């Protein structure tokens, strides 16, 4: 029972690490370039989840000063860091998607294996 309790208490952290690994596996093993970009996004999301979980305080309220006494606020700084992080990950996604478009125009495929073969053939022609 204790294990389940630990699991439930730390569900956010465990979820974040699991998502990170899923994302990493997708980036490293998938052959489709779009799927790899999705993997990056999953990795990014996992870290955002992790940061939100750090900032959370059980029973806390959003950090908007209302003048009431005896209220615990959650830590706002991780959320602010995530805002920056989201912008960064979005821009990287856009950039890599645009590269994918270019690769598709040039080679006619977005499969990593076929791409590698095509590049090797080009090298041989040189």
């Amino acid at each position: 029972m204790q294990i389940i309790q630990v699991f439930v208490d730390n569900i956010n952290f465990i979820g974040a690490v699991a998502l990170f690994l899923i994302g990493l596996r997708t980036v490293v093993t998938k052959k489709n370039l779009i799927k790899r970009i999705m993997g990056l996004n999953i990795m990014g999301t996992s870290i955002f989840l992790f940061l939100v979980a750090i900032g959370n305080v059980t029973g806390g309220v959003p950090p908007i000063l209302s003048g009431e006494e005896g209220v615990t606020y959650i830590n706002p700084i991780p959320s602010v860091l995530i805002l920056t992080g989201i912008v960064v990950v979005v821009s990287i996604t856009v950039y890599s998607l645009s590269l994918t478009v270019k690769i598709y125009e040039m080679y006619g495929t977005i499969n990593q294996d076929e791409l590698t073969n095509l590049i090797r053939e080009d090298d041989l022609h040189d």
Partner: protein
Amino acid sequence: MINQLPIINMLLFLATALIIPLLSRRKFNITLIFGFNMLALVMTSSFFMLFHIADNGAIIYQFGGHDSRIGIEFKVDLMAAIISLFVVGLTTVIYIYSCGDETEGVEQKEYGRYYILLFIMLFALLGIIYTNDLFNAYVFMEIISITTCSIISIKRKKETYAASFRYVMLNEIGSLSYLFGVALIYMVTGYTNIDFVSQSIQTIWQLYSINIIIALGFLIIGIGIKAAVFPFHIWLPDAHASAPSSSSALLSSIVVKVYIVVLIKLLFKVFKLDVLNHFHVSDILVVVAATGMIMGSIFAIAQKDVKRMLGYSSISQIGYIVMGIAMFSSLGLSSALFHIVSHGLMKAALFLSVGIIIYKKKIKKKDQFEGLAYEMPITMGVFTIAALGMIGIPLTSGFISKLTLGVAALDHRQGFLIIIVVLSGLLNVIYYLPIIISSFLKSEPKIYHPFKIEKVPWPMLTSVIILGIGILTFGIFPNLIMNIMTQAAELFGWV
């Protein structure tokens, strides 16, 4: 006023990047001269800052006047001042080269864009050197990733897109694992400012040792991917080989080095020696660096494309720098700092001279260099000086960095590392010397006119000559920079 200098430097670069599009309707030379003036201005102010910091200690700048607990803080210590001067100075030289390089796959209308990207990249490079905040470093890191990927893929060729896709993927894995490390550190300390983080890590690391070691692992791997430390190097040769020559020089001699500086900051400012010694980080880094030094050279031998060969050679040279860091001593760190500068000069000289050869002769393969020295004596001369520097022949700066690295290894009581340094040097001989021999000796001597200088745009020749002179100067008078580097390395508080 002096406290504002770091941010003024960065803003000057950002302003340049914003003004260049406005000049697009005028003659392109105006843009070039404008950019050069800005670089010269920032170089002067970096010089001034270096002397100021050497006398008066670090400059601290807090954004918006917020307390550094909650705000972002810049802290320019001696190491940061040296590295920022090196970055700006070397970029100026490469900038002069890029003014003459009209082809190399970059289209006419893209020139302006190339320089916009260059200046934004410089902005972020200076930021990452100056900043004293882990999360702020992450943001600058991402700016660097996007701009460097763009200056690779600006060349409208098939292979650059594939190479920069791979680069962006691996770089992102690196950045995200760095961010994960920062999150783990934030979890135990509650700060992102390096000073405060380091203070609280010193007090609580035994309590949360699992957290700290996971964070350390994520941070080192993240930076390792970006700095192309050996097992994470796979993106580097493709990216460097397919980029335009001036971009390759920038990437190999500056961008990668800046990440090494972040690694130094992380190890010796955030975690400090107690934690690192407890987790045996030194041993891990020494093994990684030694394998990198050997394997990078072995891979380089197998390459036919010269630029790919130079890329693999970079991997082995980064091994030297990491080994200097891994000694965890003042001597080792100062040798690493010296090698950052000397490898920067040598690799830029190699990439730019190969760039001139590609520009003039359109050849890329190693075995096409026969008799080239008769046609292009200056270019091949600089190439030879830099290649001898890579091997570690006396009178070049490469010799001094290998010497100090060897002395540091002896000081660290790890004499066997000298064998690896020498072995890696010998492997360098195997792939550099055939090029030099075939270009100088393996051809019918043509009649050579000493006054007929090779017909290459003068900016390209000037910049490679400056680099060649720099390599020789730092090889003959190493104390010009070695003293201040030792001073910078001693500031880290070794036990």
